[in-house]
């Protein structure tokens, strides 16, 4: 199991477009990926799950991946945050 803490920097938080990008990316991997915030877990392959976090700019989210490709999936997700989802 691998985890990574990432900070939401997009203006409107994790709205539909960045949420879509996460789902698209995570779906390319076999690992199970969860997002943990305030002790609640959300499925990172579910756009509604991500949207229902209703995270805003400045929030910290922990991504937890489990599976054979748990390392590459987290580094791809980290890249999305690093480019701030192209904003």
């Amino acid at each position, binding site marked *: 199991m691998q985890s990574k803490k990432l900070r939401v920097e997009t*203006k*409107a*938080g994790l*709205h*539909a*477009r960045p*949420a*879509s990008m996460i*789902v*698209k990316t995570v779906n390319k991997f076999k690992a199970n990926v969860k997002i943990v915030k305030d002790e609640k877990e959300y*499925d990172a*392959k*579910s*756009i*509604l*799950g991500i*949207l*229902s976090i*209703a995270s*805003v*700019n*400045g929030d910290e989210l922990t991504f937890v991946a489990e599976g054979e490709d748990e390392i590459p999936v987290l580094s791809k997700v980290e890249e999305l945050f690093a480019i701030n989802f192209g904003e």
Partner: protein
Amino acid sequence: MINGIGASPGISIGKVLKLVKENLIVEKRFSDDIDAELSRLESALEMTRSDLRQLIEQTIVNIGEEEANIFEAHINMVNDPEVLGQVKKQISSEKVNAEWAVKQVFNDFIQLFRDMDNDYMRERAADLCDVYERIIRNLLGIKKLDLTKLSESVILVADDLTPSDTASMDRERVIGFLTNVGGKTSHTAIMARTLEIPAIVGLSNVTEDIADGDYVAFDGESGEVVVNPSEDMLNDFRVRQNRYLARKTELDIFRNKVSITMDGREVELFGNIGTPDDVTSLLNNDAEGVGLYRTEFLFMNRSELPNEVEQFTAYKTVLESMRQKTCIIRTLDIGGDKELSYLKIDKEMNPFLGYRAIRLCLDQTDIFKVQLRALLRASTYGKLKIMFPMISSLEELLLAKSLLQQAKSELVTEGVSVSDDIEIGMMIEVPAAALISDVLAKHVDFFSIGTNDLVQYTCAVDRMNQRIHNLYTPLNPGVIRLIKMVIDNAHKEGKKVGMCGEMAGDKRYVPLLLGLGLDEFSMSPISILEARKQIREMTYGDAKEIAKQVLSLDSAESIERFIC
């Protein structure tokens, strides 16, 4: 005549096409053949995906890639494992038909989003409804009214328009939108402005008031709709339409041009905003910067003070959206006629002469400090200028500046990066400040004249008092002399002067202010192109002559007669 919220300007006259919200009736059935239901579901989902993929391609061609993203999100919703998992579970365990399972699961999610206390997320419920409807239609085999091919020009009348409606419709033939629900920032309103289609939203009952095939005329700016207008009315709307189109073409020429007179005097035309959302209208109207961001709106209509992160986010959004163009952000101007429920201020005899704006901030420094820190943190995201309101003495200015310096040192110690290039300015609203502007100019980078208060204080006229409103005029020679004095004093120190009151955007006063030497005009976005046209079509020499004449006149009345 029906009235709603003008959402996208322009005049439309034409025939109505009503989008009736069909009640997609979903009945509950039981089926033992679970596999058959699951495969019905699968093929409906596949059809939905392929509809959406087609819509994405259409949208990229017709509108833009940005707008197509929303349908990427729709595809993700169709594929959502949480949703699909629950739907399949209902089909297999409860042995219900696919439609029923889809309805139950989607309704739960739609409700979840509707209940969120966040406007953005509430809007996402509309996306889910859109996706839900698509899947159900495919399951039931009910085709939707096709808006892609229309045989004549129509005005769409609907409860609301979905993203799918606006993306797929025939843009050549749809000449207007009228909807029951929505506000200026709802999806329909934004799309209408993007597509430059006149629209009115929030008409509450328009789908009842207007029948399919009716003829309507409406004004997307004022929000008026006339159903089956008389010949006279129709002519009136045609005249308005021609006038609107002529003005639009005329002003469009002045986009992306500098605001410079024929003899080379260049000034800046900025816009006033109250919320980060207003930036869109500023950019649409080609503003060269933000001349006044009234931060008090961030503090209003809530139950507690906004914290540093919240304020930082708002300021950063404005700075980033303006892309390196100047943003003058004014610190909290509360008190007077603007009260906060959670900030108890004792009743005063004269609130406009009382505990307000910078006076309150310099007293309750904890509130002020939070705002200053948020501003400084945002400073690295664009070209920030900070402005203090209601300064009436040098001491206040120096104190405000030292608090700003303190906040900066704190942040630097904490390792937060702060821009080194933040200009500090103040508003000139109090006659005493105008009279000592020679002194104040040495301590600021710029002035911005707030005419609404300057007129009120100089003439001692309450601007809300109807009985004396004739005495409230920026053309009182006393006011004009103060404005001239402020500009001259600032220029002697090599500092610039702007104006962010109503006067700056009034086309009658632009030549006079230009002639007095004003460097920056900040107005409501809608006036910007008009003012640029005016400035580009005159000379600074003529403007100076007008100013000279005005200064020699002895009454507001004679000045008005001279310039209007």
